[in-house]
């Protein structure tokens, strides 16, 4: 009992050179990490070892080597206690179509050990919190994908766990459903006080939702740091201006004016439309003022001026640049071929 009460101060998940080897593959390779309370994203491509890690953390599959603790409890010996305090939302479909969400979640609450009355009350509360209202009395078979995902989330939260594992919760959702689900996941921590470990192979999602991101690849820890580290606000500023009769090339004019004041600029990259974006490094508030004044002097319209953040995706890029693999040569070769064929098509 005493161990669980101090959980806010300690790490929620801790692994120490955790390895899992199957006869043919190594799913986890000496993974050591500490995860603190909050929303943590676990990123990795398919087969990176995410699901294996969750299985071990639930105490359902023994590790080949190393150790892991969840909420201060050893996964090897206290699996039952861990599963009482942890919720799990699987990636795949897991809902029977012929019962209502209420019936199903009540049953799952009782399977978590909640007495009948508490199970019903908590079910009503939880379904409302995930955004299911009147439809919760209808059979699940008639639900949309978004509603089904909410039921899956509800069954993971119904016993008020201290930590939930959400395996690809945004899978199969449309952009709106995705945003709603991500908002819900954020609330699970901020409003409900439940720590979250959410897996995804989409970095952009986790960037917005998580406090901390762990990247694993091939069962190895690639990087583990807070999202603010990942996407640290850099001093890069993006500016976009309109053209006028006086300055048919507004972008060029502004760049000239800026270089006249000793500020290096570059264009925004190769993406369509990015040629009109000017990137510059700001030294502080004065730079913003200077840009504003120059734009006003030239009589251009300022479309936007914003701070650029690093995207988590760049973590992967950095990693690949850092350790060139035989694969990258092949990739370069195929890229060259693609260019050739592309050029060939142009000639025709």
């Amino acid at each position, binding site marked *: 009992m005493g161990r669980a009460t101090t959980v806010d101060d300690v790490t929620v998940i801790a692994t120490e050179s955790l390895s899992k080897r199957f006869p043919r593959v190594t799913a986890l390779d000496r993974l050591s990490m500490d995860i603190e309370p909050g929303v943590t994203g676990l990123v990795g491509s398919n087969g990176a070892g995410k*699901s294996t890690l*969750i*299985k071990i953390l*639930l105490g*359902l*599959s023994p590790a080949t080597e190393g150790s892991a603790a969840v909420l201060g409890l050893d996964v090897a010996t206290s699996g*039952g*206690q861990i*599963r*009482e305090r*942890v*919720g*799990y939302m*699987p990636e*795949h*479909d*897991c*809902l*029977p*179509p*012929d*019962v209502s969400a209420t*019936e199903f979640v009540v*049953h*799952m609450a*009782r*399977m*978590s*050990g*909640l*007495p009948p009355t*508490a199970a019903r009350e*908590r079910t009503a*509360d939880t379904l*409302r*919190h995930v955004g299911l*209202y009147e439809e919760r009395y209808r059979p699940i078979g008639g639900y949309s994908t978004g509603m089904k995902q909410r039921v899956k989330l509800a*069954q993971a939260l119904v*016993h*008020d766990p201290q930590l939930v594992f959400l395996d690809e919760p945004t899978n199969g959702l449309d952009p709106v459903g995705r945003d709603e689900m991500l908002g819900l996941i954020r609330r699970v921590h901020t*409003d*409900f*006080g439940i720590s979250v470990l959410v897996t995804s192979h989409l970095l952009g999602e986790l960037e917005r939702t998580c406090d901390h991101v762990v990247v694993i690849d091939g069962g190895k820890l690639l990087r583990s740091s807070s999202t603010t580290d990942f996407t640290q606000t850099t001093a890069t500023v993006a500016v976009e201006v309109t053209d006028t009769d006086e300055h048919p090339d507004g972008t060029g004019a502004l760049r000239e004016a800026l270089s006249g004041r000793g500020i290096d600029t570059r264009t925004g990259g190769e993406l369509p439309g990015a040629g009109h974006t000017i990137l510059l490094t700001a030294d502080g508030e004065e730079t913003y003022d200077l840009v504003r004044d120059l734009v006003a002097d030239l009589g251009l319209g300022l479309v936007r001026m914003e701070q650029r953040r690093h995207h988590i995706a760049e973590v992967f890029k950095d990693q690949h640049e850092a350790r060139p693999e035989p694969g990258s040569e092949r990739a370069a070769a195929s890229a060259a071929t693609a260019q050739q064929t592309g050029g060939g098509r142009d000639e025709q």
Partner: protein
Amino acid sequence: MSSESTQIHNIGYRKYDGPRLGRAYARRSLFSQSLRGAYGLGRSAKSKVLPMILFAVMCLPAAIMVAVAVATKAKDLPVDYTRYAIVLQAVISLFLAAQAPRTVSRDLRFKTVPLYFSRPIERGDYVLSKFAAMTSALFILTAAPLLVLYVGALLAKLDFTDQTTGFAQGLVSVALLSLLFSGIALVISAITPRRGFGIAAVIAVLTITYGAVSTVQAIAYEQGSTGAIAWLGLFSPITLIDGVQTAFLGATSAFPGGEGPSSGVGVVYVLVVLGLIAGCYGAMMRRYRKVGL
């Protein structure tokens, strides 16, 4: 209008500080949910129809026999307690075929099993609950008509000691039958997540084995090799139960010529029955090791 709905949205999250009753409670809950489910209770009206009809069909002959016995002031009931389930074995097979797949293959087909195993409940708890629930459901189905017979017999003022002994023997017999049949039907249903296959396979295993065994027994009887009859009975579930109750529970055998097993062969029968029940349990445990998370 809109203000009402926003009010509902704004109720804050409440923590749960109440008791968590753990594994044993979850096991009991799963047991009662599965047992009720076998009779369609707590489920749609449609799923109550078949089990309830079968239950009525099972009890009706008993009620008629009792009525006849009371009206004609008969000295004895027209059917032994131990014989009743054998006579109505088709109803038992139908009930099992319909309800065993419902009990286990739903969770497999809809992949609900991982949700159980991510909770304190474990594989053994799950298998035990399902096995116990199916056995209890079948025991209720087979013991209820015996109860009707017994109460009727007492009303008809038949000999109390005789009737009580017969009733007790009948109960032991159907308890054994429930364990054996449930085990076999559950293993078959757990192999396939498809309910239709489960239904067909359960009926096939129960009726084909019985048909084959009784045919070969009849041939053996015609050819005068009566010694083989008792041994042949080891190869189908219902003849196994018949053999056990003939040897130890004072029943008259339904085998051709009444050539039931002697006490010596009866021991083999009991061992085979117990071995099969244990084997079915083991097979279920193996099956669920694969479908975890």
